[in-house]
C-alpha cells in the first residue's frame, strides 16, 4: 500500500457522515485481507478482496466516508496490517465496533484508521442507515432513525498518533531528530 487514501486526522476533529455497512462478530483478518503469504499485495487486489466473502456487495457499493459497523472481536487473527489498509483503500472513514482484537486495534492506530468502540451499536442500527460520527462529542447519530449512542474516548497518547496521521509520521519526526531525515524527493 503506497498511500493512505482517506486523510485520517479529520475523522477525529470534524463530524463525518456516511452509510453503515453492518457485519457480525469475529470478522477475521482473512476476510479483510486474504493471502497472508503475500507481503505486499497490490492496492487493487486488497481493495477488491476486502470483506467480499461476507458481503459480495461491499466493495462495489462502499462510498468514500462510509462506516463499517461490526460486533465483538473485529479483526481477530493475524497481525497483517493490510487488514487495516484494505478498509482504507475502500474509502472507509471509521470502523465502529463492539470490541476489537488487540493487534488489529494497534494496526488501526498505526495507520490512523479510527476504530472506535460503540457499545451496543450492532443492535441499535440497521445496515444501510445514514450515520454521523462526531468524535469530539463522542457521539454517533443514526440519522435514519434519529437515535444517538456514545462511543468510547481514545487515550490522549493514542489520539496524538491519530492527529499526527499515524505512526509513520511519528517515526519520521523522531528519526529526523536523531539525524536520519527522509530522502529528498
Amino acid at each position, binding site marked *: 500500500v503506497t498511500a493512505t487514501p482517506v486523510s485520517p486526522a479529520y475523522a477525529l476533529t470534524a463530524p463525518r457522515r456516511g452509510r453503515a455497512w453492518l457485519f457480525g462478530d469475529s470478522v477475521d483478518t482473512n476476510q479483510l485481507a486474504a493471502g497472508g503469504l503475500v507481503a505486499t499485495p497490490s492496492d487493487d487486489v486488497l481493495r477488491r478482496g476486502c470483506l467480499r466473502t461476507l458481503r459480495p456487495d461491499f466493495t462495489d457499493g462502499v462510498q468514500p466516508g462510509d462506516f463499517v459497523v461490526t460486533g465483538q472481536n473485529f479483526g*481477530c487473527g493475524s497481525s497483517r496490517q493490510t487488514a487495516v489498509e484494505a478498509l482504507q483503500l475502500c474509502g472507509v472513514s471509521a470502523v465502529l465496533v463492539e470490541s476489537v482484537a488487540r493487534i488489529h486495534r494497534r494496526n488501526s492506530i498505526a495507520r490512523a484508521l479510527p476504530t472506535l468502540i460503540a457499545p451496543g451499536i450492532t443492535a441499535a442500527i440497521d445496515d444501510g442507515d445514514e450515520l454521523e460520527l462526531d468524535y469530539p462529542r463522542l457521539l454517533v447519530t443514526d440519522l435514519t432513525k434519529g437515535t444517538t449512542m456514545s462511543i468510547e474516548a481514545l487515550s490522549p497518547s493514542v489520539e496524538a498518533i491519530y492527529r499526527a496521521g499515524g505512526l509513520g509520521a511519528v517515526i519520521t519526526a523522531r528519526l529526523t531528530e536523531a539525524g536520519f531525515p527522509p530522502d529528498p524527493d
Partner: protein
Amino acid sequence: MGQTIAEKVLSRHNLSGKEVRAGDAIDARIDGLMVINYQALRAAYRRMGYKDGPPTVFDRSRVFLMNDHVQPPPNPAAARDNYSSGLDARRLDLANFYYSEMGICHQMMLDYGHVRPGQLIVGTDSHTISYGALNAAATGIGTDEAAYVWAFGELFFTVPETIKVLLGGAPRGYPIGKDVILYLAGQYGDAFAQNNALEFTGPLAASMSLSNRLTIADHAVEVGAKFGFFDADEKIGRYVTEADESEAVRPDPDAQYVREIEVSFDEVGFQVAKPFRFDNVVPVAEAAGVRIDQARLGSCANGRFEDIEVAARMLAGRKVAAGVRFYVSPASMSVYKQCVDAGLVSTLLEAGVQFDRPGCTICQTPGVVLNEEVCISSTTRNYRGRFGGNECADAQVYLAGPATVAAAAIAGEIVDPTEFLP
C-alpha cells in the same frame, strides 16, 4: 500488593524505571524484534520517505530477520523480495538474518536460541505470542509498529490484566495442548482474554511437555490474549542453553487476577473446532462421521516432533484412507531432521502421507481445499478461505489436535482417535 508475570516483565522493561500495575500505559524497552514479510516493513519506510528502506537499526544483534514465509520463493517477485532483504541485512550488518532457510519463524527462533525467559519480544506475526511457553512476554505487532521498534528498540504498551488458568488432569502419552486450548475457547469464547495476559499454571501445566505448552501459548492469540505465560522450569532447557534461574519470572502469591479458570483434561477429552471459528468447538464425538478430503499436520501450533511422532505411531502398519490427501509439514529443518533420524518420515511415507516443506505454507497454501471439500487440520486457524483464499470461502475446515487429525486421515472421516492410539 503482589505482581503478575506481565506486571513484573513490564516493570523490568519500563523505560521510566517505575514499577507498573495493570492499566498503566508505558514505553517499554524491547529485547528482541522478529521480522517476517520484510518487504512490507521496507514499504512502510518508503512511504515515510526512506527510499532504500530503514536508514538505521536500534541494535544489529536484537533484530531477527527471516524470509521464512516464502521459502523456497514461488516466483521471481518473491525471490527478488528475499534477495533485497539480504542487501538491507548486509547494509545494516544484521547479526541474525535467515536468508533462505525453510521453516516457521517461531520454531526457528526457538531452535536458534533467540528466546529467553523474562524477555520482552515482539514480532510481525501474531503467533509470536507462543514464546510465552518459555516464560517470555512475547506478542504480535503490525508492520508500522515493527518499523518503530526497528529504529528505536522500544514500544508503547498498556500493562494487561491477567487471567489465571489452572490446568489439571493426568498427562498423556500424546499431544493434548490443542484440545485444552480449544476447550477453553469453546467454553469462554474467542475473545475471552482480549487485551489480557494468560498465566497457565497448575499440575497439568507443570507435567505436560514443552511442546504442549507451545501449542497452548501459540493459541493464546486465538482467544485474544496479549501474552500467554508458562513457568520457566527445566523443560525449557531444550531451547534455552545455560538458562539462568534468575531470568525466570514468577507471579507473587498475592498477585491480583481479573479472573481464574480451572480446567481438567480428564473431563475435556478430544476437541474439534468446526468451521469457521476457533471457538466453534465440540467434543470429537459430536463431529464424528464427517467425511474428509484432506488432513493437515504442522504449523507453529502443532508441527513439532511429538506432533508428528504420534501420527507415525498411529499410522504404522496402516494406510491413509483412499481419496484422502494427508499433508505433513515439520515446523523447521531441525524438527524435520529429528523426524528423519527417528524413522518417522519413512513410516509416514509408507502409510501414504505426503510431506510438505517446513514452513508457513501448511497453514495457508499450497494445498487448496475447494468449496465442496472438507479438511481437518492441526494448524492455527479455520477461517473462511484459509486454504485457498476468497474463492474457497465455503471450504469446510475443522481444527483438531494431531491424534484426531491422524485418526481422521486413517478413517477417512472424523473419529475419536482413542482406538487408533497404541
